[in-house]
């Protein structure tokens, strides 16, 4: 039997992800010499390549970033187990951004200048990304950024593995408007750039395309815990849909108080773009049951890639762990980088950048994804309805959506 290629592929498949454009050469025994694959003085030896991981392990954002840290580590372990990148094992230097933006900038600079890492997986909030972006552009580093975010950005030095705003918003609103015959919307968010930009796009889409009405739009400071007045305003306006982008600790108070005020999934349609399985853990499934989330990934997705991914994740981090959208996007980072390096046949940043457009991953947990020349991923949007057990039932899946970080007519 001709077993060589299929068996190698299935081994990779076992490691949850096979890279479609895997160069055949990378499976051969002798790795290419370092002088060939590393011409810019990165931390690459004959047997290892060093990468950086920059997230908040402490501070307010540690809650959210833990999942990404774990997923990136899992992907790196799997890549190493399958032979590494260009025959080199990946070594990770972990830095703690401590939820503090100047610290992020400081550590990014350290990783690029002192440690000369091949790439960095990291950041979560927009603010931390904005703080490190000039550093990456100036030192010509590479950043794989996992969070869904507001768009309006495109950098040679960043690969965005989460969705930009239009990918997450438009199809979701279209679905809810059609499904629920919704005409009036109440927009609620935390007060920073991602919710504000998202709501701006949502409002334009609702008003100009769907010819609906926005009956209220409000932003609350991060960490605020009293939503009584807001809930009363919502009750007064009786919107068809509450469209929410509340994040962090506020999330829990918001949904608990909604539930206490008698606004629940059976009486009111609520669509959120900020609740993943991670948040549900804190909010409690019973407070969310019946509400909808628009995400590109849910842990309950029914496909073989995802089943392997979830099993591997739980085997490593415990059966009680949950996987949200950003965690999955974090998992894609190392695989995309590996694919780019192997396509380029080099660790040089410029060559990786050149190799990145139209890179495909056929076996991502979320399904097929493809890297657009604008450094964002083509991806699907899914609508999940939360169940009492904290998992989502996927009700809708869009076609692949083209990333469009600078949407015309929505700015």
């Amino acid at each position, binding site marked *: 039997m001709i077993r060589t290629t299929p068996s190698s592929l299935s081994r990779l498949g076992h490691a949850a992800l096979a890279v479609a454009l895997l160069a055949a050469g990378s499976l051969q025994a002798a790795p290419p010499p370092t002088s060939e694959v590393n011409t810019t003085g990165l931390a690459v030896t004959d047997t290892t390549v060093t990468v950086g991981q920059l997230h908040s392990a*402490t501070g307010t954002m540690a809650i959210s970033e833990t999942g990404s840290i774990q997923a990136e580590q899992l992907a790196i372990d799997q890549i190493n187990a399958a032979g590494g990148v260009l025959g080199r094992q990946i070594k990770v230097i972990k830095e703690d951004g401590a939820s503090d933006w100047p610290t992020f*900038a*400081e550590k990014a600079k350290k990783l690029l*200048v002192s440690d000369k890492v091949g790439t960095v997986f990291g950041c979560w909030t927009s603010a931390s990304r904005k703080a490190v972006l000039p550093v990456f552009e*100036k030192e010509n580093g590479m950043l794989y950024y996992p969070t869904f975010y507001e768009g309006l950005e495109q950098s040679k030095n960043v690969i965005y593995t989460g969705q930009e705003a239009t990918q997450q918003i438009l199809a979701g609103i279209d679905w809810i408007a059609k499904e629920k015959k919704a005409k009036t919307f109440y927009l609620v968010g935390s007060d920073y750039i991602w919710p504000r930009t998202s709501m701006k796009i949502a409002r334009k889409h609702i008003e100009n395309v769907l010819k609906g009405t926005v009956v209220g739009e409000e932003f609350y400071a991060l960490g605020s815990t009293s939503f009584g007045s807001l809930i009363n305003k919502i009750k007064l306006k009786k919107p068809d849909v509450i469209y929410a982008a509340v994040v962090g600790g506020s999330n829990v108070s918001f949904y608990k108080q909604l539930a206490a005020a008698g606004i629940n999934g059976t009486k009111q349609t609520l669509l959120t773009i900020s609740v993943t399985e991670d948040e549900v853990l804190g909010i409690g499934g019973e407070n969310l049951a019946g509400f909808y989330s628009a995400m590109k990934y849910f842990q309950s997705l029914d496909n073989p890639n995802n089943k392997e991914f979830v099993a591997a994740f739980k085997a490593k981090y415990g059966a009680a762990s949950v996987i949200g959208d950003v965690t999955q996007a974090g998992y894609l980072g190392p695989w995309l980088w590996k694919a780019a390096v192997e396509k380029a046949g080099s660790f040089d940043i410029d060559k990786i950048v050149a190799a990145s457009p139209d890179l495909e991953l056929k076996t991502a947990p979320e399904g097929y994804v493809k890297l657009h020349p604008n450094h964002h991923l083509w991806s699907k949007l899914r609508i999940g309805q939360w169940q009492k057990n904290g998992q989502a039932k996927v009700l809708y899946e869009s076609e692949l959506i083209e990333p469009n970080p600078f949407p015309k007519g929505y*700015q």
Partner: protein
Amino acid sequence: MAFFRTLFKTRGEAVSFACFALLVLVILPLALPVFRLNLVGKYLSYGFVVIGLVLLWGRCGILSLGQGVFFGLGGYCMAMFLKLEASDPVTTAIQSTPGIPDFMDWNQLTALPKFWEPFHSFPFTVLAIFVVPGLVAFLIGWAMFRRRVGGVYFAIITQAIALILSLGIDGNQGYTGGRNGITDLRTLMGWDIRSEHAQQVLYFICVLLLLGSALFAKYIINTRFGRVLMAVRDQEERVRFSGYDVAMIRTFTFTVAAMLAGLGGALFVLQVGFMSPSLIGIVPSIELVIFAAVGGRLSVVGAMVGCLLVNFSKSAFSEAYPDLWLYLMGGTFIAVVMFFPDGLAGLFTKSGTIKTRATALLSRFRPASPSTPNASQPAK
């Protein structure tokens, strides 16, 4: 010589100042790569605030938990100037309104807000870096000290002001950049501040200004005015009865401290390349007080050393043991407050030698040890 005497009362003071100057001017620049030197420059920009705190807290007995406000105001003035320079119509051609800062465009602003206009001018910006924090401090100080608010109440109100300003900046994203702050600053009047050479130059500018400010503070402390300050701290009523305007003295000190903080903020922005409300709120404001407390709230040099030391160890420890770091920081802080109220600098003065400290410990820390500055400060 007389002037020299005013600056340094004892030989010890002169020597410690010289050692510090040698360290930051010669040893560190020679020993560290530019990237690390830039970090030191960042820490030293906090040094300006800390010098202000020595005057305000150590010498005048007023604890402000809102120094981040003034650091932030100075920083924002600088950042606004740099941002306007970075947003020329050519580089921002992709925006719907070219020529305004990117975050304004994202927030659908179509023209530059009026209060941004003057920041096109560099002289105005330099002036604003001092005047804006100074004016705000003067107004707050004047309103409060005239009504004899002090001590704990002042601390809490300044803390609330820090919260208000950071929330206010968060909430007015189109005008301030919101939570992300003002980022991606590139050039100062055509000079690329991100290059290695520029960072070296900026480091030395920062150090020289810091040493200058330190001398200025020492001058204030060692003149007659400095002694009145201490008298205000220790025996407010008596000073008032002697005919001094206590409110004015405090307001003046608060204003000076605020201006120093503003200068620090501006230098921070130049060296780090962005400004955000996370540098203004409650936690950073308290951290600034910690730097002063660890180094020694009474000593200008001590406080600057404390600033460097705490930041260095934060950087080093948080790389190796992020968990341990907070325990260590909290523990150090409690220990310093309880056993070494004069901080590191206190270890080198007579009343603070290890032996006297040990005696004090053994006697179960009798209330109000003689070297405690705030001993007789009533709640109001």
